[in-house]
């Protein structure tokens, strides 16, 4: 089944790392939340969208040698947990580097890349990945 409507709903979050900040407790969430899990009903109507800078550092990572079908071209590749400058943790692929260059604490910057395609005829899904900040 096509993922077009779901992808479209999430596109700005995936393209620009747009999260939501709770107007009550000031916590920034990514992926975005409709309601703050801490402030609950008090956060209704107080959640505001906020774009992150794209800057962060690697909190932890793993090297994938047996990738998904659409990532076969890129093995071995790095998937990392990144602590964004604004606070939230984001999982993302580290590109344009060899696995040996990636360390815990390495500074990274978000970049827009193709993430997957729905076959040869379907849509191209774009989203954030990360490159090492030089």
């Amino acid at each position: 089944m096509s993922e077009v409507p779901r992808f479209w709903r999430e596109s700005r979050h995936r393209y620009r790392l747009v999260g939501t900040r709770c107007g009550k407790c000031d916590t920034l969430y990514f992926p975005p939340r409709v309601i703050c899990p801490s402030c609950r009903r008090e956060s209704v109507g107080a959640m505001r969208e906020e774009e992150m800078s794209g800057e962060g550092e690697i909190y932890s990572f793993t090297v994938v040698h047996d990738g998904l079908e659409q990532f076969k071209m890129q093995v071995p590749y790095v998937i990392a947990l990144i602590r964004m400058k604004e606070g939230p943790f984001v999982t993302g692929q580290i590109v344009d580097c060899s696995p040996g260059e990636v360390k815990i604490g390495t500074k990274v910057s978000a970049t827009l890349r193709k993430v997957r395609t729905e076959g040869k005829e379907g849509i191209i899904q774009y989203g954030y990945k990360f490159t090492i900040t030089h």
Partner: protein
Amino acid sequence: MSSIVSYGSYIPRYRIKAEEIAKEWGENPENIKSGLFIYSKSVPGPDEDVLTISAEAAKNTLKRSDVDRKKIGAIYVGSESHPYAVKPTSSILVEALGLSYDIHSADYEFACKAGTAAVQNVMAMVDSGQIENGIAIGADTSQGAPGDALEYSASAGGTAILIGRNGFADFNATLSFTTDTPDFWRREGEKYPSHGGRFTGEPAYFKHVLTGAKKMMERQKTKPGDYDYAVFHQPNGKFPTRAAKMLGFKDEQVKDGLLTPYIGNTYSSSMIIGLSAILDKAESGDRILAVAFGSGAGSDVFDITVNDRIKTFRRERAKGVMEQVNNPIWIDYATYVKFRGKIIMRGA
């Protein structure tokens, strides 16, 4: 008068050397290096295309400017390798860059001068008062058939120019010269382009580049010595070098904008990435002649003067062209054909 408010480029980090390609096809690499004047070229990563390259170039442009993203009135993208045959690259960029939805946008095509056609359109909209400022982008991930001479040059890269009033470089004039010349084409559904071999030279590139440049200098009552820099479309290193010499320009006026020997022909970004490299070092008062060429065929010519606002322009907020040129990841031919989809994969 419309002017350049900001600019930025993006070059994929992957590169392949002419020797690496020549080795596979039994060619003498020295012939390529001395004949075409190409040493290496950029290669897009497997997850890069014209949309991602345009987005990174535009982000670099926006980083260097304090213009409110929501007040940008137009975005046009010129390319011959848009990711979709039907579905604009420009509309994806509106969302990817966080621009206002109240914006003019379209994708342009005119072989290698689609990006400068976009520049001219944004200039016209600014000059007519329709918009305050707009972004014009030229980007490509061009392909050459395996074993074809184009395989040494067809590369990837993009440049975005933010055009408005009160920028740091004024457009003194622009003109175009267009004729029906079948020097290079790609039919609908075909993966690789075809070209007329030597026919791409005299009746196509040289006729349009030289005529366009001469017409501009006639109109502006200038001569080559009046310009500090000149930059031409660069399908290889040889053509622009020869065109510059034929027009009377000296090597020192041309060298800073000549990038094809190191990153290949970035097609729709070819001339404007050279202009971007020049703007990386230009100073107030510098005058630039910029000539784009698109097969099919035509030229777009620009006479530009850098003004005092360059002194407060924040170049350092984004990576310059040479910084990106000098940060390569070298790949071999096997990786290159894998990245460029030149081998048949299961399920493809």
